[in-house]
């Protein structure tokens, strides 16, 4: 990666904006270095480093937009890129959704960078793999896992005066421990902005414990059960909700937040009174960039307060059309929680099912936000306040809207990236670039009544 200092990066984007003769211009310089180590069958299988630095220039003549990118930064390259964007804009059809770039803004200070994470080396990654493998081997288990870390920066400037620079880091670790006979499987994940104190040897214990405890499963009948969803499972159910708070979809009549007869459900009680959902770019441990894709300042926004919808997200275009104020697209989603640990919640449960994670989550009906997916890597029956025995995995068909109306207890929230599906996390795949201060969920464990399991799965 071409390493630029803050001054150099700011100078480049400012220069680019000055070069453009178009009505509007914004420039974004971003750099990303990701490192990874993958292991399976108790061996390190692949490791690598990918670097990418890119300058994106967006210009507008009236409502005609053009964008060009480049990864060379001498004056001639910058000039060429601006001219190319201008050429494309002149040829482009008008985009009625265009809104001018923002003027000077005040952004919150958010701590998204960790020197420790940025200093991760190939040897560190290999050691994470080795530690995970050694712990699993010692318990006669087979380890497969992945460590990915990233550091990056973003600098921008607009014709009308908005400007910013910030560095970010992230580390994402997961490990699956399986018994040799394939009858038991456990999993752990950890997503951190600051790797200080991260210990794969410590984290992997949870996967090992679950693998060893989940070998002799019994089959329960599918049906409605009280469940304790661990935070990873809750994040999976909340993931699809992030797009639900889009005002435009609600106003257009194609969201569960659309009202019969037109309009949206702002002000309506849609979830149980314990449920509060909000976004806050400065939330400790889940801090994100203080601006969104349009460089609009992010602040704390409460979407649902005590189960009542309080805000929807308005893009600049839609806000203008509806006579509302725009709200920046949030970078995180936080569900307010309590102090109870999952173990505390198990102790207080007469009969129920403990779910480690949910897998291959897909939308079934956008009208009701009905989702389907499966439990995976540690599903247990709870009786009289204790884990009684491991059970076979279930397929669920449940809507987070119904789930958030059936909440009985809320645990302590933790930072996660949403668990998504067969192809990966967060609606298809986990993009570490997106996790650089962009898309973080803070989810508690939840005890929920009447969670709907529709069939059994033989998968382990």
């Amino acid at each position: 990666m071409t390493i630029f200092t803050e001054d150099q990066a700011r100078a480049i984007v400012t220069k680019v904006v000055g070069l453009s003769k178009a009505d509007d211009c914004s420039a974004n310089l971003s750099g990303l270095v990701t490192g990874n180590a993958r292991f399976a069958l108790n061996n390190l299988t692949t490791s690598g480093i990918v670097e990418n630095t890119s300058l994106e220039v967006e210009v507008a003549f009236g409502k005609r937009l053009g964008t060009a990118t480049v990864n060379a930064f001498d004056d001639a390259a910058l000039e060429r890129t601006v001219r190319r964007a201008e050429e494309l804009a002149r040829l482009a059809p008008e985009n009625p959704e265009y809104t001018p770039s923002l003027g000077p803004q005040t952004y919150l200070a958010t701590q998204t960078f960790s020197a420790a994470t940025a200093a991760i080396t190939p040897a560190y990654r290999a050691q994470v793999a080795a530690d995970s493998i050694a712990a699993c081997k010692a318990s006669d288990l087979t380890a497969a896992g992945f460590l990915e870390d990233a550091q990056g920066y973003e600098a921008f400037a607009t014709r009308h005066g908005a400007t910013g620079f910030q560095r970010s880091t992230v580390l994402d670790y997961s490990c699956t421990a399986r018994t040799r006979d394939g009858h038991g499987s456990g999993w752990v994940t950890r997503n951190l902005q600051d790797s200080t104190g991260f210990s794969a040897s410590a984290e992997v214990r949870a996967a090992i414990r679950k693998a060893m405890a989940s070998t002799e499963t019994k089959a329960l009948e599918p049906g409605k059960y009280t469940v304790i969803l661990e935070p990873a499972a809750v994040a999976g159910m909340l993931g699809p909700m992030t797009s639900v708070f889009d005002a435009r979809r609600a106003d257009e009549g194609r969201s569960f937040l659309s009202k019969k007869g037109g309009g949206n459900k702002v002000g309506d009680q849609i979830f149980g009174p314990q449920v509060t959902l909000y976004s806050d770019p400065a939330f400790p441990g889940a801090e994100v960039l203080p601006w969104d894709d349009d460089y609009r300042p992010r602040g704390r926004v409460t979407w649902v307060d005590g189960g009542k919808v309080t805000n929807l997200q308005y893009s600049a275009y839609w806000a203008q059309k509806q006579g509302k104020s725009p709200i920046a697209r949030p970078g995180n989603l936080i569900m307010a929680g309590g102090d109870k640990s999952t173990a505390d919640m198990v102790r207080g449960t007469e009969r129920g099912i403990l779910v480690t994670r949910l897998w291959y989550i897909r939308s079934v009906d956008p009208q009701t936000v009905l989702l389907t997916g499966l439990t995976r890597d540690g599903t247990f029956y709870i009786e009289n306040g204790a884990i009684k025995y491991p059970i076979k995995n279930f397929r669920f068909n449940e809507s987070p809207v119904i789930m958030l109306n059936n909440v009985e207890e809320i645990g302590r929230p933790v930072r996660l990236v949403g668990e998504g599906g067969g192809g990966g996390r967060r609606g298809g795949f986990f993009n570490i670039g997106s996790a650089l201060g962009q898309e973080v969920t803070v989810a508690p464990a939840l005890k929920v009544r009447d969670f709907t399991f529709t069939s059994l799965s033989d998968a382990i």
Partner: protein
Amino acid sequence: MHRRDFLAACGLTTGGMLLPSFTGRLVHAEELRSTMDVGLKKRLADAALNAATKAGATYCDVRIGRYLRQFIITREDYVQNVVNTESVGAGVRVIANGAWGFSATNDLTEENIARVAQLAVAIAQANSHNQTAPVQLAPVKGVGVVSWRTPIKKNAFDVPIKDKAEMLLQVNGAAIAAGANFVNSTLFTINEQKYFASTDGSYIDQDVFRLWAPMDVTCTDKATGKFRQRAGLGAPVGMGFEYLDGSPADKVTLPSGTIVYGKSYDMKEDAIAAAKQARAKLAAPSFKPGKYDLVLDPTNLYLTIHESVGHATELDRVMGYEADFAGTSFATLDKLANRFRYGSDVVNLVADKVQPGSLGAVAYDDEGVKTKRWDIVRDGVLVDLQAIRDQAHILGKTESDGCCYADSWSSVQFQRMANISLEPGKAKMSAADMIKDVENGVYIVGDGSYSIDQQRYNGQFGGQLFFEIKNGVVTRQVEDVAYQIRTPEFWNACVGVCDESDYRLGGTFFDGKGQPAQISSVSHGSSTARFNGINIINTARSLG
């Protein structure tokens, strides 16, 4: 463009496909029509091969790639974005001391590519210290200098952007005129110019084209607050712009009255039908759950094949290499050895990397292996899996199956799913013939929601259009249907497959696998097939 705009524009926010990253350089549309000089590519490749060999590699392959993508994204009466990207570079893979090493660069000079080849050797040597067993590579005979191009008739990159955008806007206009409230349509065109060279003595130049024109049509009912969507019934294809000609000869009218498409697609006609059918979905009765005989059109069955057979028979999954991510597979080596009954006698599933018009068709895979067609399930019995060069020995094979792929010059090639298809039935049978014998069933057209567990046992699939079948007759359109399967039981419940005249390809354009994730495109063909006694659930919920 912003990733969120792309997701929203394409209506993909609820889909499960893996999206491409936009790391390519944005370029003029004109630049998408050119190709790199093959002489230059050979000189670069030789520089890498020589440097790697000199540095101690016992094997080396070089992939010099130019990956071009164009996305035209529209909604209703305007174009939201046009994106042209180009990504050029070279990846060098070597074996040294019995271990793999890989390195890649976008700086294409002979000097630099030689340096990158040396780096790959150094990485292999470092990796070899922790390697428990040396790489065993199935042999490949060098093919010398050869070339291949997807047999397209009309290069989509030659069609002016204005004309393509206008075509999409006409599609949108037709849907709105037919009663739709919203419509999103997109045209994806991809060209992979891939040059492969190896120390086996191959210099393979391939020019691969793919195209996809998805759309989503939405109807709302303000009074009830309900909305319904109908996605397009076209398929992503390994073809040129000719796929969008919509030739009348390629249209098929199903027993439900639905029009579906074969080798070409009439997108505008489908948009009009989509608007009417989305409106009809708003009023269609909710279906009673229970056991039914399912009749699945190829537009639906392709995705069930993909999930329950395609991924389940990837050897790396079977072995445990994907255990932390997508999972393992129920189709284990002992099941293969014991001739596991995957399906009924009429079930024949073939892997195919050569089928014309398919997304997976190439002449050579990304490790220089000549592609082929091979059996996975024959007469219901599991007979083979999908393996690449360093896996072939696990199955006792002496050659790779030729299904190795990397989504970029900068990604390491690995095993990816071939086109996996259900062979048509031998006896003459149309969908109408098949439905005549169904007493109590559901006929499903188009792909919908899909989810399957990490060993590919328990799957749940929706669709676009559902029709009730009573006593051999398609009676009415119904809603809120999803079918749940246990893979071996599902395929063993297959009692009939229509003949070749009904055979059509479906496919997935952005299939994801691996960590870091890579995308791939793959087709799945079938004729209409019948599955008896399948569990149907009702997906309607009341939010109070």
